[in-house]
C-alpha cells in the first residue's frame, strides 16, 4: 500500500488546521452558512436530514487494518457506532457534530486518511477494481496508476473549481468490476504490442442524464497519460457549462459537441500540454509502484475442505480466484437479509480489520457494490476466516445475487432524496431470503436510488429501482436491462411506478418470468435482452 511521504502528511495536516479554524469561526458566528458551506464541503462535511454527514475518502477503496480500525474508532467515539460504505468506495458517518469534525479529521490524519475530494466540483476520490493486484485477469496492477492520479488531482489548482464534480475510475481487466464506463473518465489499462497504455473513455455517468462514456482514445501510452488527462480536463474546464448545474457534467458537453469534436479538441490541447513536462519521470512511477509490490506469498496450493455445507456455499459464492496459486479473494457481504446495505458496526469493522491483519497481508478493499474484500487470503485459512465472519454476522453468501443490493441512504438520511431506498432493499431481500431461491436466480444485480441523482446506481441495475415523489407520496419506478460491467448498458423504465409493496411484488413477478423463459445459463439480464420487455410487462401489469 502507498505510504504518505512528508509532503502528503504536511498537506493533510495543514488542511486539518485550516478547517479547524474555519469551523471555529463558523461556530463563533463570524461566518454565515453561505460562506461556510463551500468550505465544509471541500472537507467532506455535508448537512443531511438529521445531522452533519462526514464522507471519508478511501483512495481506490484500499486501506489497511490500522486505517480500518480508525474508521471503527470514529464510529464509536463520534458517531452512533456504525458507518456506511458507499458506491464510491468511501465511508460516511451520519451523525457527526460540527464541533467534533476537526478532531475527527485530526485523528484520521494520524493514519493517512482525510475527507478531501469527497465533495465539491473537483476530481473526486479515484475509484478502481476491488480485486486490483489480486485478479487473475489484470494486465497490470491499476493501483499505482490510481495513486498517481490521486496525487495529480489532489488540490490541482486548475481543477479545484470545475463546472461540476468529476469522477475517474481505473481498471486493468477486460472484466469491469468498477462501472468504469459510467464515469466522467474511465481508464482501462491495456497492453499493445507489449507496451502499457490506456483506453480512455470520457463522458459517462448516471444521474438525471445517464450516459455510457464513448471511447475517446483507443490507446494512450502510459508515458503520456497524465498529459492526456490534463488535456481532457482542460477542454471540459473551458467549455463545460457553468450556467446550469444540470447540464454541467462533461457527459453533456460531449453529447452536445459530439465525441469526434471533443476528441479533436483534446488532441489539440494535448499537443500543447505534452510540452509542459507534467508526466512523471520513470523513477517516480517506480517509487509509487514499489508500494504496491506483491505480498510475500508463501502458502501451498491446498484446496479447502468442503465438508461444512454452509462454508462450501460461501466458498462458491463469495470467494473468487486469485492470480497467485494457493490464494483466494474473499468478498465480505455487507448485505445481510433485512439489513441496511453497506452499513457495518464498529465491532464488525474492527473484526474485518483483525482478519485483514491476520489473514490478508494487512489489506482490505471497499467495493462500489458496498461490500468489503480481503484480497490476499491463503486457501488454507479460508475456513478460519469464514468462521470468524459467521460469528460476526458477516458471512452472508449472496455476492451478486438478488439480495446483494446496492442502495443509497435515501430519504431515511439524505436531504436530496425523494423516497426511501433502504426499506425497499430490506423488503426485497426478505422476500427472497431463501438462499436456494436466490442461487437459482443466479447473478441478478438490483440497485436502488432514492432520487434521480442515482447514487444507488439504479441505471446500471439488471433491475433498477428509482424512488420518486408523487404528490408527496413515495413511488418507485422499475428499470430493466442496465449493467455497470463490461456489458455496460442503461436500464429502461418498464412502465408506471409502484408503491413500496407493489415494487417488491413486481420484482418477484419479473423473476418468475425470467425463470420461465431463461435458456441455458442465461442470467436475468441476458434473458431480458433476448426476449425484450413485453413478457415482463404482461406479467407485471397484466
Amino acid at each position, binding site marked *: 500500500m502507498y505510504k504518505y511521504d512528508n509532503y502528503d502528511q504536511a498537506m493533510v495536516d495543514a488542511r486539518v488546521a485550516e478547517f479547524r479554524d474555519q469551523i471555529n469561526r463558523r*461556530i463563533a458566528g463570524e461566518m454565515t452558512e453561505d460562506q461556510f458551506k463551500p468550505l465544509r464541503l471541500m472537507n467532506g462535511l455535508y*448537512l443531511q*436530514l*438529521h445531522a452533519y454527514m462526514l464522507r471519508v475518502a478511501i483512495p481506490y477503496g484500499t486501506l489497511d487494518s490500522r486505517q480500518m480500525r480508525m474508521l471503527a474508532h470514529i464510529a464509536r467515539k463520534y458517531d452512533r457506532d456504525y458507518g456506511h460504505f458507499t458506491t464510491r468506495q468511501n465511508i460516511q458517518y451520519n*451523525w*457527526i*457534530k460540527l464541533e467534533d469534525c476537526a478532531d475527527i479529521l485530526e485523528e484520521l490524519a494520524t493514519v493517512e486518511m482525510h475527507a478531501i475530494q469527497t465533495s465539491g466540483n473537483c476530481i473526486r476520490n479515484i475509484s478502481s477494481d476491488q480485486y486490483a493486484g489480486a485478479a487473475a485477469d489484470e494486465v497490470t496492477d491499476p493501483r499505482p496508476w490510481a495513486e498517481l492520479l490521486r496525487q495529480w488531482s489532489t488540490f490541482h489548482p486548475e481543477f479545484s473549481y470545475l463546472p461540476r464534480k468529476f469522477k475517474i475510475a481505473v481498471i486493468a481487466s477486460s472484466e469491469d468490476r468498477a462501472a468504469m464506463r459510467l464515469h466522467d473518465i474511465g481508464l482501462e489499462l491495456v497492453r499493445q504490442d507489449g507496451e502499457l497504455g490506456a483506453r480512455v473513455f470520457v463522458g459517462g455517468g448516471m444521474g438525471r442524464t445517464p450516459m455510457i462514456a464513448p471511447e475517446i482514445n483507443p490507446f494512450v501510452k502510459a508515458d503520456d497519460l497524465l498529459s492526456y488527462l490534463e488535456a481532457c480536463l482542460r477542454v471540459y474546464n473551458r467549455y463545460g457549462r457553468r450556467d446550469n448545474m444540470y447540464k454541467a457534467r462533461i457527459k453533456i458537453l460531449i453529447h452536445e459537441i459530439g465525441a469526434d469534436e471533443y476528441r479533436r479538441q483534446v488532441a489539440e490541447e494535448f499537443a500543447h500540454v505534452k510540452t509542459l513536462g507534467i508526466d512523471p519521470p520513470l523513477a517516480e512511477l517506480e517509487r509509487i509502484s514499489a508500494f504496491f509490490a506483491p505480498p510475500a506469498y508463501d502458502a501451498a496450493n491446498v484446496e479447502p475442505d468442503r465438508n461444512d455445507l454452509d462454508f462450501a456455499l460461501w466458498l462458491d459464492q463469495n470467494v473468487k480466484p486469485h492470480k497467485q496459486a494457493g490464494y483466494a479473494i474473499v468478498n465480505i457481504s455487507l448485505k445481510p437479509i433485512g439489513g441496511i446495505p453497506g452499513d457495518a458496526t464498529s465491532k464488525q469493522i474492527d473484526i474485518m480489520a483483525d482478519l485483514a491483519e491476520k489473514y490478508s497481508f494487512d489489506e482490505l478493499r471497499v467495493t462500489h457494490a458496498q461490500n468489503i474484500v480481503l484480497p490476499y487470503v491463503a486457501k488454507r485459512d479460508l475456513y478460519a476466516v469464514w468462521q470468524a465472519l459467521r460469528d460476526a454476522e458477516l458471512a452472508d453468501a449472496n455476492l451478486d445475487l438478488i439480495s446483494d443490493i446496492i442502495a443509497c441512504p435515501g430519504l*431515511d438520511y439524505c436531504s436530496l432524496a425523494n423516497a426511501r431506498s433502504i426499506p425497499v432493499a430490506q423488503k426485497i431481500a426478505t422476500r427472497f431470503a431463501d438462499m436456494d431461491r436466490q442461487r437459482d436466480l443466479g447473478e441478478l444485480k438490483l440497485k436502488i436510488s432514492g432520487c434521480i441523482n442515482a447514487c444507488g446506481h439504479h441505471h446500471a441495475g439488471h433491475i433498477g429501482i428509482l424512488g420518486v415523489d408523487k404528490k408527496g407520496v413515495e413511488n418507485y419506478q422499475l428499470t430493466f436491462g442496465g449493467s455497470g460491467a463490461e456489458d455496460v448498458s442503461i436500464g429502461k423504465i418498464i412502465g408506471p411506478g409502484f408503491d413500496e409493496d407493489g415494487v417488491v411484488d413486481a420484482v418477484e413477478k419479473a423473476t418468475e418470468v425470467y425463470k420461465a423463459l431463461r435458456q441455458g445459463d442465461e442470467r436475468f439480464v441476458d434473458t431480458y435482452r433476448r426476449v425484450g420487455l413485453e413478457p415482463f410487462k404482461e406479467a407485471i401489469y397484466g
Partner: protein
Amino acid sequence: MKLLTGNDLVSGAVTWWTGNGWSIHVEDAADVGEQGEAILHAEEGARRVNAPYIIDALPTENGPRPAHIKDRIRALGPTVRTDLTLKPADPAAGDWII
C-alpha cells in the same frame, strides 16, 4: 399551520421553532402563521440554526404533524433504525411517519 424548522448549527440536529427558542421535539413547535419569514430572517441573523425553512403541518392532539414525509422523517429519525429515533422505545412511532 406553518412550522419553522432547521438544523442546529453545532450538533446538526433537527430543530423546531417553539415561539421563543428552538426544540428538537416537533411536539413543541409553534404555528408561526404569517410571521414565518420574519422569524426566519431574524434567526438566520442569529446564526444558531442552519438553513431554516417554513413547512406546512397539520395540528393533531399529539402536536403538529408535518405535511410531507421528508419532514416527518426529519422530526422522528430514520425509519430503518428505530433505535436511533427520538422515540426508540415506541414501536408505533414509525406509523406516525408513514
